[in-house]
């Protein structure tokens, strides 16, 4: 692959050889390049986990915060400076487990952030426990008798809650993944990209081959504006559909609803407090 402006050069990457993360990293950098984004005007926010190390491998601004808390931090960043492109990235445990509440409310808030979730159906950094998306029966050192809880269907939840952009990709198909990421970043509003990914060390069930055999792309005839149809596809039994399930282009962005941006998009750090107004406010406490 040709060098892109987001390359970090020769760095030590902490992922296992053969990890699906490498493909996601390449797809992301390629997407950012094709979108002609300026590394100085982009922030990648993450929590903790193997996937959450991603921003350290992209030449851009980085906010690597707490486990599960990438979405609130990303929301704060985007709201403080709407001129920035903001991506919140992490794994399935980070985003759907520890950060599950933020995921639900990010959909409601509809801040213009792209939420990329590396979904390998296992906890890798902590060495192989079940994740919220692990399949029933998946055995681990903790889930000794196999997982009994229903896997979290983030796609269905997002569509049910009328998220403004909902897509699923597979890391094995770098080109399509790149295209989906591009669409998600270009979309105004909260965009979920759930990326299925193999974990070579801790998931011997949902392997690269398994994903190859158990996924397929939504047909060209699928209408992403049809929420009912999108929900049907998100909840169908059997193989997992890939592609853009749903879009709602009519939802207002959070930043657009904030009074501070009604008349100006100037980032907060460039603004000045009007001290005269504050004096007027204080003086209003003299009469009533």
């Amino acid at each position, binding site marked *: 692959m040709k060098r892109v402006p987001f390359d970090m050069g020769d760095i030590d990457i*902490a992922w296992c050889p053969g990890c699906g993360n490498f493909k996601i990293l390449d797809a992301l950098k390629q997407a950012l390049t094709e979108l002609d984004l300026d*590394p*100085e*005007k*982009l*922030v990648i*926010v993450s929590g*903790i986990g193997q996937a959450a*190390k991603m*921003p*350290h491998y992209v*030449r*851009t*601004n*980085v*906010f*690597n*915060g*707490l486990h599960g*808390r990438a*979405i*609130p*931090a*990303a*929301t*704060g*960043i*985007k*709201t*403080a*400076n709407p*001129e*920035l492109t903001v991506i919140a990235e992490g794994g399935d445990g980070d985003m759907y487990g520890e950060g599950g*509440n*933020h995921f*639900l*409310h990010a959909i409601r808030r509809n801040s213009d952030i792209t939420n990329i979730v590396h979904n390998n159906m296992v906890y890798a950094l902590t060495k192989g426990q079940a994740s919220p998306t692990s399949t029933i029966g998946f055995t681990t050192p903790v889930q000794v008798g196999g997982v009994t809880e229903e896997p979290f269907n983030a796609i269905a939840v997002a569509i049910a809650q009328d998220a403004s952009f909902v897509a699923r990709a597979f890391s094995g198909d770098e080109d399509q993944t790149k295209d989906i990421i591009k669409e998600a970043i270009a979309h105004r509003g909260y965009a979920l990209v759930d990326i299925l990914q193999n974990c070579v060390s801790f998931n011997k069930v949902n392997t690269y081959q398994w994903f190859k055999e158990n996924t397929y792309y939504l047909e060209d005839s699928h209408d992403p504006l049809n929420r009912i149809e999108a929900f049907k596809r998100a909840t169908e039994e059997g193989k997992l559909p890939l592609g853009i399930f749903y879009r709602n282009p009519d939802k207002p962005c959070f930043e657009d609803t*904030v*009074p*501070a941006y*009604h008349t100006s998009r100037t*980032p*907060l*750090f*460039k*603004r*000045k*407090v*009007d*001290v005269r*107004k*504050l*004096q007027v*406010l*204080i*003086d209003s*406490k*003299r*009469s*009533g």
Partner: protein
Amino acid sequence: MSTSSIQKRDDISIVLCGEAGQGIQTVEQILTRVLKLSGFNIIGTKEYMSRVRGGSNSTQIRVSSRNVSSAVDRIDILIPLDKKALQHVGKRISPDTVILGEKDEIVGENDNGDLTVIDVPFSQIASDIGGRVYSNTVATGVIAGLFKVDRADFLNYVTTFFSGEKETIIEKNREAAKKGYEIAQELIDSGAVDIDVKKDPGSARDILINGAEAVGIGAIAGGCNFISSYPMSPSTAVLVFLSRHAEEFDIVAEQAEDEISAINMALGAWYAGARAMVTTSGGGFALMEEAVGLAGMLESPVVIHLAQRPGPATGLPTRTEQGDLQLALYSGHGEFPRIIFAPGKLEDAVFLSSMAFNLADKCQIPVFILTDQYFMDSYYNMPSLPLSDTGIVKYVVKTDKRYKRYALTKNGISPRGVPGFGSGLVSVDSDEHDEEGHITEDLDLRVKMVDKRLAKLKEIEKDALPPELVGRGDYTTLIVGWGSTYHTIKEALGCLKRDDVSFLHFKQVFPLHRTTLSYLKKAKKVVAIEGNATAQFSHLINRQTGFNIQDKILKYSGLQFSVEEVVAQLEKLL
């Protein structure tokens, strides 16, 4: 019936007591303002149960010719609005208390003949006007009348206050207010009550604010333009205040899905160049703790307003305590510096809240403003709030290509850039990191980074605010207090009339000012007064200075100290 004791006073404590939902807050809001506008000094405080209807709540309005700013136990005029009221404030009623209320219905069996009761049939009058809901406005009228507030001014204020309501509701409230005012005139004419508190013409033009507004005004003065919080008593009023003024002052005000989100949003906002705060209490702050550590590691500024209430867990949600000093002091795992302010005066809250933003920005640390329910809910008047003491100092730098977020410097402070301002990249990391902000497991660098973060404590200590000495410098006994007890202890000290006793008040409780130990060592006896059960500030002093405070007056019932209580406890000890 004797009303002689209140006639002599130039300082009257009025208490209204009734159920939640009976409109006691409305009475408080109207009366504090109307009485202030007529030229009286005012302090309003309240205590209430954690419920929306029923129970027993009370509001105290102290009207004085002097500038007093603390709560007293004494009740000079009591207006009980329901049967439970006399039980609720029973301990505070004396034969000198004038009770204005329904003699048979409300006072009834509580009266053994030792109470001074003036029969005012509030509910009957209100029902005649249109419903018992107007009882509170009738009571407002009685008080306004007793204090000889100008009738037209009073009625105009009532009209303005209810201006958002339907025309008939405004009219009925006016009628209720008028009726109350007439009753007061009858009481004055018959000689039943005569109040002669002198007016202080200056106070009519004074500013009247409460603790929550003081924190909010200070935050705006400090350049706050982002608040994300989750509602929790008693901290919510600051979120309400900044939300109400969000449009005027370009403030992003967001109610987050939980406290964890709130503070992580605030850290994101600071990272992108905003000046952000959170407001929270007890358990809400406990949820934020991990992110306090994140602020420590990212070297991110953040301002945390922590309005204390009694814990642990849900505790007493609507009551007061100074019980979270240690929580703030030790919050977050790992080692990193912080600043903790604890305003005693409303004016302090304005100044400290504005300064919190500058210091957070300068030293890239969490700065706490520790208040409590009593402080949040107390109103009083003051001549001015000079903004000249405040001012916004920004420390954000424009980055260049070589920018390193954690560049090692002598004082530990690295220039703070924000993304999108300059040609550099800004990388911050909750992992231990290198100068560029990328993950590292270089253990030598780890040591350097810990030293760098802790070096900032020296800078912070340089800026520490000195404690305020109230009284003479040649004391033999020194009372030590912090935060919201300032006015109460100061007034109690005045009542003691002892030249050898002084009071040292701390509005910055961490780190302590370098003069602290010399103040303590000078005294033969030191008495700490704290609103908690374990003398948390005394322990902090001991840890920081090695000085052990022997005598302590501690209160943790959920109510603030009263002036009388402090006087009595000090008299026992001294």
